[in-house]
């Protein structure tokens, strides 16, 4: 007889609002999963009818972790709507803001949110467990302390240009507010150098950035791990060894389709900001990969579905054509009917497909052979996808892999700032439609704006978490986390750490709650104390 289980984990982790995950299990395997975003604030409604620049203040406050990314989108959306002119320095300072926020997030996310789960007693029988606990246990782990505290360094650089992190509004249509001086640039170099010495090369890589950057294939990476004790015992070396030993490569596959909007607009390629010229201008390319083939990014291929979201029904539509959402009554998890509406998150689709957003999507786009000379060209993750496929392990490796390259980019962009050049060109305000996009640390983020009679008529925000935690669409296809949970083997239903690891590998913005149910009857069988 099949053993059916229902799990309730409330909450799993970790950022703004609650994410409930209902999991149905049969014989210890997840057969179906639903994600429920459990908090509504209504930012898009708040902006309607307000000053066109409201998004610069309001949208960073959607997410305190990705505030700089929201600002990158909000300013670009206005740039395209108003037809501004952007000086090269402005594009550099915006890219620096985005890059410092993202590189900060790598150790902060890895140590504070992800790796503490690997210190879970579930893995106690593994040979590397003792070392993992010594380093990554919350608060007391040797790397936890260093990783969390040095993560504050890159955002010190953000503060030099933006005044503070989180929640600056220094990117404005036409450029940036600040005009750094020589001492700001030299200080920024010095702070980043400290970050390199305190964590990036010493604790994280165990080698020089240059050595790590030589890795082009999965075999190269394995060779790098075993090359010497320093690399083997670095945190990245330990993650790769422990990740495979703990079996993280065996679960959390997802939908197998990936979307990235790309980011880091080149200083000389978007001085007249237009939606049509953005694909060529981004240094980290965007696109859509369906598991076999690359497609050039076209934001008009994006639609949002609300059939299973607590908003008044409207047909799936592109954000410019969507009405502002009308909230409907919601239920708690126990009373939710998952055949009906069940989440505050909408379900975005690209070419009608659910797609994963995040670092893994980005590094897949980086491997596109069609990338131009000024864009990232890094074949590593296409090789890893072929050899290992997507998983909790691969997704996390993608996030970590970005740190050394971002360090080099930050260094280069700091050198390119021209202290004699302009930082801002005052734009003319006008009505129109705009689109701004970027890659937040956790994935594709975009804002769509329509301005009419000098105020915001429509503002639509699509966050990476919307892509990943979104519910079923109109045709009943699951969202990426829902899909990634299906098939996951739960070793101990009393401590379903696998479910938490899958959810956290996507780095959803939401505090995650997991509830598991009988796969056949759908009934909640028992409450497990976890």
């Amino acid at each position, binding site marked *: 007889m099949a053993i059916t289980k229902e799990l309730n984990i409330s909450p799993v982790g970790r950022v703004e609002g609650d994410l409930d995950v209902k999991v149905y299990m049969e014989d210890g395997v997840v057969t179906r999963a639903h994600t429920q975003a459990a908090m*509504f604030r209504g930012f898009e409604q708040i902006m309607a009818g307000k000053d066109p620049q409201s998004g610069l203040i309001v949208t960073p406050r959607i997410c305190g972790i990705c505030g700089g990314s929201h600002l990158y989108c909000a300013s670009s959306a206005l740039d395209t709507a108003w037809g501004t002119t952007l000086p090269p320095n402005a594009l550099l300072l915006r890219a620096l803001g985005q890059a410092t926020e993202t590189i900060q997030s790598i150790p902060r996310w890895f140590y504070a949110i992800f790796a503490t789960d690997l210190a879970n007693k579930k893995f106690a029988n593994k040979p590397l467990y003792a070392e993992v606990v010594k380093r990554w246990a919350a608060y007391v782990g040797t790397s936890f302390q260093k990783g969390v505290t040095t993560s504050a360094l890159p955002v010190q650089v953000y503060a030099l240009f933006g005044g503070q992190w989180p929640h600056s509004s220094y990117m404005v249509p036409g450029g940036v*507010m600040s005009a750094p001086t020589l001492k700001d640039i030299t200080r920024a170099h010095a702070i980043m150098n400290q970050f390199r010495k305190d964590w990036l090369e010493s604790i994280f890589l165990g080698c020089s950035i240059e050595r790590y950057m030589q890795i082009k294939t999965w075999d190269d990476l394995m060779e790098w791990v075993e090359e010497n004790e320093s690399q083997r015992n670095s945190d990245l070396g330990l993650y790769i060894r422990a990740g495979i030993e703990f079996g993280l490569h065996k679960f959390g596959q997802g939908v197998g389709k990936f979307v990235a909007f790309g980011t880091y607009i080149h200083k000389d390629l978007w001085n007249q900001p237009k939606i049509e010229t953005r694909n060529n201008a981004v240094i980290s390319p965007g696109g859509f990969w369906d598991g076999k083939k690359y497609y050039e990014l076209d934001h008009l291929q994006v639609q949002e579905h609300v059939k299973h979201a607590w908003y008044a029904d409207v047909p799936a539509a592109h954000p410019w054509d969507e009405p502002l959402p009308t909230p409907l009554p919601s239920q708690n998890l126990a009373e939710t009917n998952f055949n009906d509406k069940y989440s505050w998150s909408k379900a975005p689709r690209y070419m009608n497909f659910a797609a994963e957003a995040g670092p893994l999507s980005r590094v897949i786009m980086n491997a596109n052979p069609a990338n131009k000379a000024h864009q990232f060209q890094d074949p590593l993750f296409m090789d890893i996808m072929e050899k290992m496929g997507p998983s909790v392990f691969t997704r996390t490796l993608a996030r970590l892999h970005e740190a050394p390259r971002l360090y080099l980019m930050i260094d280069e962009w700091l050198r390119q700032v021209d202290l004699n050049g302009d930082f801002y060109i005052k734009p003319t305000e006008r009505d129109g439609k705009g689109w701004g996009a970027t890659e937040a640390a956790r994935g594709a983020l975009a804002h769509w704006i329509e301005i009419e009679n000098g105020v915001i008529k429509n503002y639509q925000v699509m966050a990476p978490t919307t892509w990943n935690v979104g519910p079923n669409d109109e045709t009943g296809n699951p969202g990426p986390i829902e899909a990634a949970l299906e098939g996951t083997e739960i070793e101990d239903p009393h401590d379903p750490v696998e479910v938490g690891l899958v959810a956290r590998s996507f780095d959803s913005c939401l505090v995650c709650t997991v509830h598991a149910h009988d796969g056949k009857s759908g009934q909640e069988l028992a409450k497990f104390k976890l």
Partner: protein
Amino acid sequence: MANVLWLQGGACSGNTMSFLNAEEPTVVDLVTDFGVNILWHPSIGLEIGHQVTELLDDIIKGKVQCDILVYEGSIIKGPKNTGTMNYFCDRPMKDWVRELSEVAGFVVAIGDCATWGGIPAVEPNPSESTGVQFLRKEKGGFLGANYKSKGGLPVINIPGCPAHPDWITQILVAIATGRIGDVLLDDYHRPKTFFTDFVQTGCTNVVNFANKVDGGFGKRGNGCLFYEVGCRGPMTRASCNKILWNRQSSKTRANHPCLGCTEPGFPHHDLAKGSVFKTLKYLGFLPQDVPAGNSKLGYYMRAGFEKTMHAVEVGLGIEKAHSQGSK
């Protein structure tokens, strides 16, 4: 030793992120050296699942002592006062807060959403958000004007969008080290030690303010942002230019107008057309908001005199020095 429970309602986690930037003490130091015991925190708590629900129940029943309840984010009451737009552990978050506030030693509201309602409470306030003990400038909020925690204080408000990490850690250390008696609160329940001086105190543009030299975006410290781009530094109480942000800078030092985020009412003028990064004016030239402590008429006369004289001097080629920033 102090047990801290940290919850997030209608929040962006910005205050948590700010908190993680803290130095002297770092978050880790708080735990390992200052006896701050984090019972649970949404991002950096260890318990998951039913452990959390049980913990909350144990606190409410008095089995576990909660010395400090830190609340981040607005209290979401919508729709129609049900709070069901924000479930947490299967109940509306507001119901948890109501019960926990009755047993907590002190309640600390962190950030603008928790203190005054913040951005979620901007009209039309779709989630019916409020602050814990204020809604914008009005006392009352969710817990009511008369609420006092077991420790005898009303909700301690640490505003800011986000709050500066030092404002958070120092208050936690003050409570943990038995110095709560020295924490004096102002009319908006803000600790006076951080919220008495104005943002302008320590602003590197203060000379330009005194000389009435206008600034704008993309310039280097060669003009004050009060006159054209809506800086609220002269009427906002916070220590942003005394205890710098991320140990490096502040908004106004980076040529970013102060948004007035430690005052109830942020975002000011409710994001009305023409109010974002623009100084609202009467007759096209008189600022609607004048520096705190000034009569409007008196300020207009003094500032007008300075501005006129400055324009004359620049016209004659006498004056230049103050308006030139270094590269």
